[in-house]
């Protein structure tokens, strides 16, 4: 685990669970799995505090425990899972877009509490819905469970003797993060198609993906073949394209060099599959408004190649934004040509030598580009050696991911700093709000309310507005960086899985 990851995990734990949980989590992350008493010793906390913290962490699946053969229990922190806290808003928002308010609230409740029995979760969501909207609180929401639940049935050891044991006692549900990740990857694919071709094509691909959601295993490289008739029947209601038009779109998609869609047969009007590992292609250019140019050299049914495209698109974007478009041109050139000498770079990129040199060195110093030595003679004499510039995509991706973790940690610290600096003013503002609220409830006059409002002076109001604007900006940035983290992590993870 890198320092950057550790620091980020620390901040996330502290912000959401407090310092005691943070200390315990920290100790586990830094020194590895250990039993309770060592943890107490390390953290310097009281045993009860540590126990409480562990209960919270286990409840939220951030720590797992294992009973050792000799009977002692060892606790282990799950760093990847802790980092997912950053993505909670995205999970909740996605649930909202897919399943509406009940879905959103359900995912939110499950994330807030770690895991819940269904009866409990449904009751909470129903309460919240009736709070906001009258008459809409239904108790049965069968749509959400299959997609988002992961049930854990436990044998009941003993009836606790409590008055009401709910009928689903012992069965807990939690959010299936991996399934959401699959969805995000699918979203990226649809997005890429939309910007590369057009809206309708992306709808076709989206339909195909939707049809295959449940039948495609999580790590699969293709969807099951779908016949064009089936696709035609499953298109969303608003799309009134004729069958022939659909066929044309499918043919176009299959012919596209990106090979999102492959034709696998002719039955049923032609069967097509979607290369899911192409779902790794994404328009991941969050920073540009123009569509990305994605360059591919071979069929993306090869998972690795598809993910390389994804990661390289992100890298290109980062180079462009940090160093400028000429530098990005050199970078893309190196990606395409793999290894180039100094002179060749100047020639192919059509950039004057001095400028090209300068750009290469800058990228070299940032480790985005590296030098490869190819000796001509066995004695590796410097004058008889080729020096080639190259991009090591995996290394660059790791480096940038590390930088992302650092960035988010810095953003969080800055945000907390801003809040601390303005603590006094914030508290004052809250008090004034409370007073105003209670005065309004008891029907005070406008003049009195105005008097209370005046308690916060003009400059103070300005200060509060600045604070709010800054904090919002920082929060939005954190969300943004997490998108890049998702892309890079997906790429690295799948590359590591290759035999």
């Amino acid at each position, binding site marked *: 685990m890198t320092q950057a990851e550790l620091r980020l995990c620390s901040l996330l734990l502290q912000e959401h669970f*407090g310092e005691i949980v943070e200390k315990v989590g920290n100790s586990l992350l830094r020194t590895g799995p250990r039993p309770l008493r060592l943890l107490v010793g390390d953290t310097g906390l009281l045993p009860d505090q540590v126990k409480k913290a562990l*209960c919270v962490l*286990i409840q939220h699946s951030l720590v797992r425990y294992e009973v050792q053969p000799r009977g002692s229990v060892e606790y282990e922190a799950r760093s990847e899972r802790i980092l997912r806290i950053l993505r909670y808003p995205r999970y909740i*928002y996605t649930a909202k877009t897919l399943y509406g308010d009940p879905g959103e609230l359900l995912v939110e409740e499950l994330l*807030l509490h*770690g895991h819940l029995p269904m009866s409990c979760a449904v009751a909470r969501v129903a309460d919240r819905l009736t709070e906001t909207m009258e008459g809409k609180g239904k108790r049965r929401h069968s749509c959400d469970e299959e997609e988002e639940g992961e049930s854990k049935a436990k044998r009941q050891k003993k009836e606790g003797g409590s008055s009401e044991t709910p009928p689903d006692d*012992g069965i807990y549900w939690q959010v299936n993060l991996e399934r959401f990740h699959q969805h995000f990857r699918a979203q990226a694919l649809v997005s890429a198609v939309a910007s590369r071709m057009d809206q309708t094509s992306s709808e076709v691909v989206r339909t195909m993906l939707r049809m295959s959601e449940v039948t495609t295993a999580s790590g699969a490289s293709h969807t099951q073949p779908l016949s064009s008739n089936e696709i035609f029947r499953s298109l969303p209601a608003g799309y009134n394209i004729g069958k022939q038009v659909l066929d044309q779109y499918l043919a176009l998609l299959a012919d596209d060099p990106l090979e999102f869609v492959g034709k696998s047969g002719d039955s049923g009007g032609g069967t097509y599959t979607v290369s899911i590992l192409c779902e790794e292609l994404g328009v991941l250019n969050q920073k540009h408004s123009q569509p990305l140019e994605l360059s591919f050299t071979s069929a993306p049914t090869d998972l690795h190649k598809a993910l390389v495209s994804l990661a390289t698109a992100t890298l290109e974007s980062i180079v462009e934004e940090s160093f400028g478009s000429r530098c990005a041109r050199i970078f893309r050139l190196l990606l395409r040509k793999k290894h180039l000498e*100094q002179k060749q770079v100047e020639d192919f990129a059509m950039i004057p030598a001095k400028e090209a040199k300068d750009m290469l060195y800058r990228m070299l110093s940032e480790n985005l580009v590296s030098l490869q030595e190819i000796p001509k003679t066995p004695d590796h004499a410097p004058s008889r050696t080729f020096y080639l510039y190259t991009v090591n995509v995996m290394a660059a991706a790791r480096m940038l991911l590390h930088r992302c973790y650092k960035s988010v940690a810095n953003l969080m610290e800055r945000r907390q700093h801003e809040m601390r600096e303005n603590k006094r003013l914030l508290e004052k503002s809250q008090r004034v709000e409370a007073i105003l609220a209670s005065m309004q409830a008891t029907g005070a006059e406008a003049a009195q309310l105005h008097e209370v409002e005046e308690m916060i002076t003009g400059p103070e109001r300005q200060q509060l507005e600045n604070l709010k604007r800054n904090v919002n900006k920082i929060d939005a940035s954190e969300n943004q960086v997490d998108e890049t983290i998702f892309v890079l992590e997906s790429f690295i993870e799948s590359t590591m899985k290759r035999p």
Partner: protein
Amino acid sequence: LSMAGRGRGRGRGQMTFNVEAVGIGKGDALPPPTLQPSPLFPALERRAVPLPGGEEGEYMLALKQELRRAMRGLPYFVKPGAPRRDIERYSDKYQLSSPTDNAIDWNPDWRRLPRELKIRVRRLKKGRTTPLVPKQRVALDKEETIKKLESLEKKEEEVTSEEEEEKEEEEEGKEEEEEEYDEEEHEEETDYVLSYFDNGESFGPDSDDNGDEAVY
């Protein structure tokens, strides 16, 4: 030994490899040597692209802040024990302190957690008010004595809970009497309804974030 340094420094910056191959021609000006660590906030050459706005971004932002706020209020947010006041106040007796380290304020499913994490809490029964009485009397003594006694209490609890664990390990498979948690331990026996009591200090610097919510 002094011979070892000879030959170095002659000619500008000799390198072990042929610098021409990398592109540094003869007579080119090299950038000046770096004599200090890079600045903490290096100047940005180009402005960062603005954040994507839009409904999705706004909503996710609101969700993020709402989530943060909500989690602070949940029992999973473990707060350290209330700081000791400098002067013992009369009102302390009537104030419901937030559950200190000794209690866990939510109900985990103990079937899914290791036994050792269960915090042993003293039962509060009518017949057993005696352990509490010394606690209250102690409040009138000086602080050092309080601390001493509390640490002794804690030790006693630790010892007993350790003993419990050993016993449990020996008696595998037997039905054990489970310690009942009593979350009412902190409810003092007074004639006054505690939620009505407000000593007017909730606007002070010690208050929690949500001063406008009632304390039950």
